[in-house]
């Protein structure tokens, strides 16, 4: 059988952290989006790990839905990005700062 669950969880944690840090550090909108996907994957990995540990198919069903929603989210998000980039090419996440206090 596979290795101990905690290894998977550790890996998932590492992936999640990398994704989170990347989200905070990168300015390019598309790369930020990809970091979000990373985080989602880490979550998926966790789900599947627990599905195995607890012998519960619900974990895998959850991943299924996460996948669907992630796909939908990416579609809409990229649509928005395209619409933004039509207006202003080279927009980065730092360009919206009008709500500065």
């Amino acid at each position, binding site marked *: 059988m596979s290795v101990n669950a905690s290894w998977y969880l550790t890996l998932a944690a590492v992936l999640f952290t990398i994704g*989170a840090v990347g*989200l*905070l*550090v990168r*300015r390019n909108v598309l790369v930020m989006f990809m970091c979000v996907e990373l985080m989602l994957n880490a979550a998926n990995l966790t789900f599947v790990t627990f599905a195995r540990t607890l012998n519960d198919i619900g974990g895998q069903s959850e991943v299924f839905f996460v996948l669907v929603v992630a796909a939908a989210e990416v579609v809409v998000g990229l649509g928005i990005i395209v619409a933004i980039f039509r207006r202003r090419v080279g927009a980065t*996440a*730092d360009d*919206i*700062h*009008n*709500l*500065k*206090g």
Partner: protein
Amino acid sequence: MLRAAFLIPLFPFLGFLVLVPFGRRLGNPLAGWLATIMVACSFLTTIVVFAGLFRLAPDHRLYVQTWYSWISVDRFRVNADLLIDPLSMTMAAFVTGVSALIHLYSIGYMEHDEQFAKFFLYMNLFVSSMLILVLSGNFLLTFLGWEGVGVCSYFLISFWFSRPSAASAGKKAMIYNRIGDAGFLVAMFLIFERTGSLEYQTVFARLSHVGTPSLTAIALLLFLGAVGKSAQLPLYPWLADAMEGPTPVSALIHAATMVTAGVYLMCRINPILFRAPDAAHVIAIVGAATALLGATIACAQDDIKKILAYSTISQLGYMFLAAGIGAYTAAIFLMLTHAFYKALLFLGAGSVIHAMNDEQDTKRFGALRRAMPITAVTFLIGWLAIGGVPVLAGFWSKGDVLMNAWKNNSGLYIVGAVTAVLTAYYLGRAYMLTFTGQQRWVEARQSGGPQLHPHDPRWVMSVPLVVLAGLSVVAGLINLPFSHWDLLARWLTPVVGAHMFHPHFTTAQQWYFALADLLFAALGVAVAVSLWRGTAERPAAEPTVLRRAWYIDWAYDRLLARGSTELAEVTALDVETRTIDGAVNGVGALFRSSARVLRKVQTGYVRNYALGLMAGLVLVLAYVVSRTV
């Protein structure tokens, strides 16, 4: 007949009510006549009620007329009621009588004034309040009248309010009065607390249940009220300033009626004073001191009204002296006679002032005897009466007081004697300066100013003078020290008799006293005449300390008035602006500055906010870890 008592204060009040809307329309002189007639009607009603009271047996001369239940809260019940007994009727009689005469006089005195009607409506309101004060059957209604006369005094003193000195004099009077009123109020609280009622009859019946300390406190507090109202030491400076008002006001309010309210109160509470001998002692001493003080100051004043004002203070001191030693009849007797001759003197002074075109400085008068004979004669009679020249009223009334003082404490007698001499002296000085000597006003006026033709006033002003002069002569008859002639004492016995001081004098002693009084009067008159016969300049006889009234008023101003002002400034600036406002504004500033700092969190960058999210996540995870690990 007694039932008509309610009309006594009602007539002048009706006069007031009519004059308020229609006074201006009635105009000069109708408004004045209306007011005078109202007061005269009140006087007639008083006579009627007086007669009705007289018809009752001496022991039953008491009639309480309840109008309605005024205040009824739990235990506290006060009715609006009148107490008709010898004391109140005596007061009402001379108040209405003298008021009527002065109203008549005012028709002439105020004839050139634009606010003619307003004057009379204030006067009527005053008389109404004074009558309520005097006739009331409980402390609270008396206090109502007390306040009423105080406020009318304020209105009338500052009648010519466009004059700053008049306006501030009115304020000064009000403030001094208020200090006394505080005493009156606290006394009422105490009385109610100790006896459960404010009605005179009820309170006096229950006095045996009240301890002496409380009684002493009550007496002293009521005396404080009297000190304020009757201008005794230390609350007297307002009376001198009150001379800013028109002369009839000075005559009525500050000679005959309002200032006597304090004496009336002391006589009314004689059961309390009887049981609080320490308080009575204090009253007598304060009265004596004030008498001497007033007399000394009057010796060096130039303004004729100020002379009379300080004279009033001095004579009131006599009355309190009498009340303090328990000689209530003497006090009332003196109050009665004093009302006559003081009002006479004031009205005479008013005539002179009116004739001299509002000049009040005696140093500018002189030799008016020939120009104004009636005024001169009546003034002379007034002087001699107040001086205590025999046969005239003052001789008998002041003699009464001095005799009783001797038996109580010879020190008081000496003070009273000295004051008597001074009284005869300073008023003599006033007479000499005004009516004899050179016509100083001619020389003064020659350097500019209209020509003066002083002459006796119209009949509306002369008649009161004559009447009052007559009263000053014969009023002594009501209480002669011979047996069966002490009418006033017998009349007042139901009210004050039980607690009165009854020293016994042999006939010889009485003659000695009479002789002594004659001596004092003669001494004063002689000195006055000799010093001031030909000249108006005697700086030696008018030392500055007396001219400045012992600097007492100046001291009050420096210490209290300026002190309060500075305290107020400190409070306004340091406490209010810097501290309180600073604190309040500081709170606002605190928020603003903290907001300025906290604002930096809102950078506007999404990535910064994402950092915040991460930080929150870290915190939550930390919490979870702390719980499970």
